[in-house]
């Protein structure tokens, strides 16, 4: 009996920590904060956008190339649309990122879903910003 008790059994120490050590990054904090602030800004931007485009004098029926060209001649509307594009895309992408974090079971599916998400986000933001900045009202002439 005593002989077997002499040697320490080759077992893991109980309560061996299994969590990865803390990374000391504030990323999750800022992304949480960003969701709240961009959400507030988007309420104003998107509702204003919908009101102007769909309800104000004539609504959708007056929208044509000239209308868009006239609007984007002003830096104010350029800025409005640009911030709406960036905030909505980042807000949506961050929301989907949390959904993927919550629901993707395997590391591989998590990885590929995120790659897909980030690619789509970057492409949409790039394309949208490109159009807003390089819009040429005389393109038809």
């Amino acid at each position, binding site marked *: 009996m005593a002989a077997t008790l002499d040697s320490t059994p080759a077992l893991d120490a109980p*309560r061996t*920590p*299994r*969590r990865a050590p*803390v*990374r*000391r*990054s*504030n990323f*999750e*904090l800022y*992304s*949480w*904060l960003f969701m709240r602030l961009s959400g507030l800004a988007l309420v104003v931007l998107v509702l204003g956008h919908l009101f102007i485009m769909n309800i104000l004098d004539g609504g959708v029926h007056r929208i044509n190339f000239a209308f868009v060209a006239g609007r984007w001649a002003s830096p104010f509307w350029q800025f409005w649309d640009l911030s709406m594009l960036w905030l909505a895309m980042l807000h949506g992408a961050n929301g989907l990122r*949390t959904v993927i*974090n*919550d*629901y993707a079971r395997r590391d591989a599916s998590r990885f590929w879903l995120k790659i897909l998400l980030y690619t789509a986000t970057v492409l949409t933001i790039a394309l949208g910003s490109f159009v807003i900045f390089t819009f040429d009202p005389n393109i038809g002439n």
Partner: protein
Amino acid sequence: MTATVEKAPTAGSRGSQPPVPEGATTITVKIRRFNPETDTEPCWESFDVPALPTDRVLNLLHYVKWYLDGTLTFRRSCAHGICGSDAMRINGVNRLACKVLVKDLLAGAGKHTTITVEPIKGLPVHKDLLVDMEPFFEAYRAVKPFLITSGNEPTRERIQSAADRERFDDTTKCILCAACTTSCPVFWSEQRYFGPAAIVNAHRFIFDSRDEGAEERLDILNDVDGVWRCRTTFNCTDACPRGIQVTKAIQEVKRALLFRRV
């Protein structure tokens, strides 16, 4: 194995049924059962049990185990809402079986009552209502739920004002029953999330004026699997048998992180 056990494999562990008390009605207890030695999937099994309105769900489970089927497995110890052993999903919500009265679950007059009992969700089931609590306690230990101080030990007790004590009074009441954590949809889909109970117990020390480990614990909860995962679903507050404002405690930790002020 004795001959009697082999003769009646599903008999209760305490022999024949006692006389039905006056005023008892028969209700059906539908239990989600799983025997790892014979089953591949959990399945429902129903038992008819005579119950008084003043009985608790735990009494019904005892009746099943003692007089109908001794193989029914569940945890319980104090039977008075103190030890936190018997959290389970009763009629779809997390409750302590020893704190839910039958009279609150009775169907309307003339209708037959069925009570469903399942193991708490999100933790691996060992057998019947018995789950593996280790992932839950692992998250609890990870937030360092003990007093952290520096310097010499004081020779007398550590004094604290009533107002300072008030700040974390609510979260001292936790009995670690896991009802909150296993009612959280974020935890159901991602078990690496610390879960409400661990955050409640971190809150208990973060806001304690005698403790000096707040920074450390806040850093731990600032991680991907920490407080920012909380979606303020409020299931935890609803589930807590001690009436702790769990979601509020989580929000207070978020605020402390946001303003780096405890």
